[in-house]
């Protein structure tokens, strides 16, 4: 086994042991981080793999949360996990398909602005109208139930159960996205990133490939948003605000692009950092801003490539 595999397995064992060794605070914190890691991986498919910088990814994250509320109708009735989850993911995928179909007509910096603008439109739909509580948002009083017939294998109300469900989600997403990247489809996406003209000359319908990637990324973001909404116990327009989109981009670049492991690493680094800064001062965002600037300036390859950056720096220092 390679060193990377061993590190990955050790990390997995450590994550599986969190509820055994740590208290409720850490179980909730790590569940939140793992949800964010799924969210960041979905964006990595666009940014790191296909080379599409989207600044509106939170729209798909948030819409899935709203899908729970809107599909429930009665706020005190429990929805079924098995119906509401596919519904939420489908809602995110459809929205991504619609936004992607328009946004992918543009490229580069236009694409960044257009994805930001459309996600802001979705924000205003939930903010300005009275859907699901308008700008105040709405509570999810009862978490979805996972019943098969009369048998309930786990309960999302239980923090530890929730934790293991999210851990399974993280592993499943990682494995599936890895398989996707190794497939012909994944290679085509990487090809588009490095030279779209050439891919088109080779006969690939690059627009269709990019749109498929955009929709899949939206669906996976919806998966994360669904569990995030359940964990918080409410949805509000802030879930799909553009700060959320920028934060998930930050996680990606903190961890490193294009290999999914970076997305997970970045989610851990970002959430822990945010918690650390928040405990220091109420103006913690100024620290965050300064940190972001320093990190992007000094570590353009992210934490998972920090070793390379360090070696390059040493070499340069050695030359001088």
């Amino acid at each position, binding site marked *: 086994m390679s060193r990377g595999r061993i590190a990955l397995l050790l990390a997995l064992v450590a994550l599986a042991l969190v509820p055994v060794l740590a208290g409720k605070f850490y179980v909730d914190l790590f569940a939140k981080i793992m949800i964010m890691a799924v969210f960041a991986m979905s964006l990595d498919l666009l940014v790191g793999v296909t080379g599409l*910088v989207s600044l509106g990814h939170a729209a798909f994250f948030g819409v899935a949360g709203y899908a729970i509320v809107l599909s429930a109708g009665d706020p005190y009735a429990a929805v079924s996990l098995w119906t509401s989850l596919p519904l939420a993911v489908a809602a995110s995928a459809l929205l991504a398909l619609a936004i992607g179909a328009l946004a992918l007509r543009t490229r580069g910096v236009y694409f960044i602005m257009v994805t930001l603008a459309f996600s802001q439109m979705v924000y205003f739909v939930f903010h300005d*109208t009275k859907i699901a509580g308008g700008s105040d948002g709405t509570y999810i009083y009862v978490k979805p139930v996972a019943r098969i017939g009369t048998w309930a294998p786990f309960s999302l109300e239980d923090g530890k159960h929730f934790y293991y469900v999210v851990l399974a989600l993280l592993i499943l997403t990682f494995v599936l996205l890895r398989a996707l990247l190794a497939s012909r489809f994944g290679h085509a996406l990487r090809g588009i990133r490095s030279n779209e003209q050439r891919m088109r000359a080779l006969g690939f319908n690059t627009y269709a490939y990019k749109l498929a990637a955009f929709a899949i990324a939206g669906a996976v973001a919806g998966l994360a948003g669904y569990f995030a909404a359940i964990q918080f116990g409410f949805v509000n327009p802030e879930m799909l605000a553009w700060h959320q989109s920028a934060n998930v981009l930050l996680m990606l670049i903190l961890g490193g692009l294009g290999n999914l492991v970076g997305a997970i690493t970045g989610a851990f680094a970002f959430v822990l950092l945010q918690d650390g800064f928040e405990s220091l001062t109420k103006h913690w965002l100024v620290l965050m801003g300064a940190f972001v600037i320093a990190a992007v300036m000094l570590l353009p390859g992210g934490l998972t490539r920090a070793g390379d950056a360090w070696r390059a720096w040493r070499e340069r220092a050695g030359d001088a």
Partner: protein
Amino acid sequence: MDVQTFLIQVLNSVQYGLLLFLVASGLTLIFGIMGVINLAHGSFYMLGAYAAFVLSGLTGSLFGAIALGVPLAVAFGYLLEWAFFSFLYRRDHLQQVLLTYGLILVFEQLRSIAVGDDVHGVPVPAALSASIPLGTTMSYPVYNLFVSCACLAVAALLFVLLRRTRLGMRIRAGASNREMTRSLGIDIELLFRVVFALGVALAAFAGMVNAPASSVYPGMGNQVLIVCFVVVVIGGIGSVTGALVAALLIGFIDTFGKVFLPDYSGILLYLLMAVVLVWRPEGLFREGAV
């Protein structure tokens, strides 16, 4: 809708459109010439508004605040380009997005530390505090008219600068072909710095002049930023004429949308953008055609 209401809404549309233009023109020039996507551009509008609040308190008049604030904004832009943005040109768009996002967080928090998070009003100058009566029940504040006129004057000056002066010629050359401009021996670094300072000053001026009409509040910059992105996308990146047309279009759509469809007015401009993207993905005006 009677004639008076219609007239008032038209005036409001023009005012909003021209304000958007002042912010968006800097954004589009900075992108067109330097290739930098600047999320922090809305912060300059916010900083301008807060500068108007602080400086009009110190000098006792809004005009004093503007007379002090504009040179300050130019100096601030010049320094910021030298200290920060000049490092962004070689970075890719993703890094530019994150670096300028980091800058937004810093600006917003510094503002919060210095002035706090309350909403503040800026007094309207006494000479302009009257209202023009329209019909029997309605009136239009003179100050809002002044904002429109001031913005119009600045916009006209900008067009004269771009089309009739040597500096404007260089800016247009830089926007249509950066490398060629450099190889002709024009000091492109200096040009970048001047254009950036100009963009900051335009956005800050918009914030200052509109501060008495809108009051100053946290987050005001980001709101303007995203609408300005829509303006730039509709107008065509790098095109100042496009920015003017798109800004006025959005001014009208947003203002009249609030009258006729209050629940959906926030969405209308994005629908307009969607239509433009289907019809002309490169925007209404060609890239580089300043």
